[in-house]
């Protein structure tokens, strides 16, 4: 090997090359001489390290036992308090004991390796990753022989029919997954809102009267037919809730810029919009009274509720769908109809 080290620059004879070999202009001086450590020279120092390492292992043993004791001894609901910080005592003591024990085992082993084990570097030869020409010749021969014996190349009908059979195997792998879910159909276009459904507060489930709302107020609301779903079908309830959540807001009528065709969608400045962001569907919840802006906390799309909930900032592209409101015979807010467009994030077929 040493005769190769000091070679001058030699151009690689490969087809394309980007560089010239190393080991020039300075010949390789070889490995630096080994510097003895204090533990190699001084037996006392070596003994000291031995004591350190065994102390770490010994302490680790105690800590592991401590963790086991803590498991039984500390009630699982007791709290440890350090000033403003607090934590579950059971978990914390067990974690501290186990964590320190593991750390000490590791630190001890590393200290042992670094200070006491022989630290002279040794060298091992590399071999190119590719096979030798003889191996290549041998395997090529064997493969050719195998192919010939099978007749795979000659008997084309077998080969082609096999390829066909294996290829078609992919089909069931896809088709059998069909029942993973229903087809979307019209599901994304509809919500449980419909004509005459009352608008209720989403916490108290109480219907809302226009007089309940003052100018500047925003109420998180839901359709009155949502709550009964919870008992009957919790999944349908969650799915319905994910689409039908709305915000009801009261704005000074003079500040509202009504879009043509929506003149009678509000009641005395009370407007109702879908709460589901048109970007990726987070429920929008941060309202700024003075600007009538509502902000989605997920990606900060901002909508102006006084101006048809149009997007004033952020990644959303469409205004929040508006729910036309009316007042029923008892004076409560109801929907004139369902939403006139799909709520929530966009999708391809939406048009």
């Amino acid at each position, binding site marked *: 090997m040493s005769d190769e080290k000091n070679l001058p620059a030699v151009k690689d004879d490969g087809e394309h090359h980007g560089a010239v070999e190393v*080991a020039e202009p300075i010949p390789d001086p070889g490995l630096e001489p080994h510097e003895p450590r204090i533990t190699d020279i001084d037996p006392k120092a070596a003994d000291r390290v031995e004591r350190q390492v065994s102390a770490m292992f010994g302490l680790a043993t105690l800590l592991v036992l401590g963790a086991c004791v803590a498991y039984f001894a500390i009630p699982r609901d007791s709290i440890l308090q350090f000033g403003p910080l607090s934590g579950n005592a059971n978990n914390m003591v*067990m974690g501290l004991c186990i964590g320190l024990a593991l750390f000490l085992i590791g630190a001890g082993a590393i200290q042992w390796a670094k200070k006491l084990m022989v630290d002279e570097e040794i060298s091992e030869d590399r071999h190119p990753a590719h096979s030798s020409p003889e191996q290549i010749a041998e395997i090529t021969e064997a493969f050719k022989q195998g192919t010939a014996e099978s007749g795979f190349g000659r008997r084309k009908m077998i080969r082609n029919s096999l390829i066909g059979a294996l290829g078609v195997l992919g089909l069931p792998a896809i088709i059998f997954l069909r029942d993973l879910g229903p087809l979307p159909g019209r599901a994304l276009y509809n919500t449980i809102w419909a004509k005459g459904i009352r608008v209720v507060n989403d916490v108290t489930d109480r219907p809302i009267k226009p007089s309940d709302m003052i100018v500047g107020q925003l109420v998180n609301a839901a359709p009155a037919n949502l709550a009964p779903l919870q008992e009957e079908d919790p999944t349908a309830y969650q799915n319905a809730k994910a689409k039908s959540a709305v915000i009801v807001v009261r704005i000074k009528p003079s500040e509202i810029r009504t879009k043509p065709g929506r003149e009678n969608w509000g009641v005395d400045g009370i407007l109702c919009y879908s709460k589901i962001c048109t970007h990726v569907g987070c429920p929008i919840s941060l309202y700024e009274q003075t600007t009538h802006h509502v902000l989605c906390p997920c990606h900060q799309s901002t909508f102006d509720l006084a101006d048809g909930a149009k997007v004033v900032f952020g990644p959303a*592209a469409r205004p929040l769908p508006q729910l036309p409101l009316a007042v029923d015979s008892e004076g409560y807010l109801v929907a004139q109809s369902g939403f006139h467009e799909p709520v929530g994030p966009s999708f391809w077929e939406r048009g």
Partner: protein
Amino acid sequence: MSANTEFPGPVKWIDDRLGIAKIGKKNLRKVFPDHWSFMLGEIALYSFIILILTGTFLTFWFKPSMAEVQYNGSYSLLKGLHMSEAYASTLDITFDVRGGLLVRQIHHWAAVLFIAAMMVHLLRMFFTGAFRKPRELNWLIGFGMLFLGIVEGFIGYGLPDDLLSGTGLRITNGMIQASPVVGTYMNFFIFGGEFPGDDFVSRFFIVHVLLIPGIILALVTAHLFLVVYHKHTQYAGPGRTQKNVVGYPLFPVYTAKAGGFFFVVFGITALMGALMQINPVWLYGPYNPAEVTAGSQPDWYMGWLEGSVRIFPGFESHFWGVTLSWNLLIPALIIPPAFVTLVALYPFIEGWITGDKREHHLLDRPRDVPTRTGIGVAFITFYALLWIGGGNDLIATHFGISLNNVTWFLRFAVILGPILAFMVARRWAISLQRADYERLTHGLETGVIVRSPEGKYTEKHQPISTYEAYSLTARDRVLPHEIGPETDDNGVRAPRRALHKARAALSRFYFADAVQKPTAQELEEAHEHAHDPDEIHELTEDTETYREVTSDRS
């Protein structure tokens, strides 16, 4: 000294069946080089083991079901609330299983560490050129593990079915839905119908505990097998060549060091689990599709994707009865896959540009390949800016600046920042190369200023050691890819001329301004120059008054 020719009893029993001496003889004393940066991959491996151990513990109590139950555990604030079994069992693990909270937190910290370690490991590979032949495939395997690790982490984050994880899934659902043509179908198949439905927890659970960990385990095996087969790379230095590997043997030194390091990593994650709260799901409450918390943040590794989606302006096209949501298509479905594909294919792209087809076992110093280093820094900058974008609301509130300004700044910065970072890093690397060149030819600046009898001031330089000089020059002398003659011997135009020209131009760009190491002749001249009586370079024994003007000497 007579060697044993027979194993003791129990070992013999095994050897009779497995032939362990044949397998072990090569590998027991296998040499691994020593460097701190070689531990990054180890951290990733060890955190994966910790994840399997702690994850198994968690599965004993976790119920992967979205069936609705009323919570009756010991956490009084949520008592009586309706929630999914998944969330209720997560609360049970947290409050009613002793050590449950600890293990849950170790699991989450280890997951965060797993992905961080893989990413830093990838950067180490990148900047030192460790991905070059013959290790391109191992780069791809490692990249595959990083990708799967991120998916695995995100799915795991979705399992407890708390408000935060549900919000994350809602966002994912919205992104999938933006895919052209198949978006809604994919969503309905993944979630078993409309979001949230009642299927995703049980489906994600099996993917999280079996499918992805199984694939990662297989890839880890292949990754480590290739490390053993190729032998570890090493940094250039005296006695360290392309043809050898210098370091300590697997047994005993690395058994102790690497084995010990596993315990250190486990110990630290356990301490983090004991002392540092992570993902306190009991504070978020059960998932409710009509609620969200301000300041919602995903785990750190999803932040760049989140940022990409946050800062993209709201464009959408409607035509021919369909909707194309550019505001999601580009930042969520095009940019991230394009970015990661570029990272995955980088070894092949660089190999094509440089035309380098040789094996490489000596690592590059980042400064010695300025363009690659520049590209790497540009990638980091791009990633970091998107990541900052993922927290634009927190930056706005914490620093009291306008959210809109932060977003607008980032919209430009993600394009300009990487370009600027590329130029700065590249020039920086070139300057460092020049400094190395100076050090080689003129030696080390001692700081000793000498005034000659004529009144001329010079600084003394001390030659560097042969070992250091060798280390600095043990690298390739780079040459751009040559284009070859316009026509062959028979006057026929060479095929695919335009492609070759482009490649040669790229190659020239790739190597432009990089400083070659000095030739033997240049070194010779520099050293002769040093014997010039006007300039005193050798630091002699009697001038030990460093950093002083020694006007009374020489």
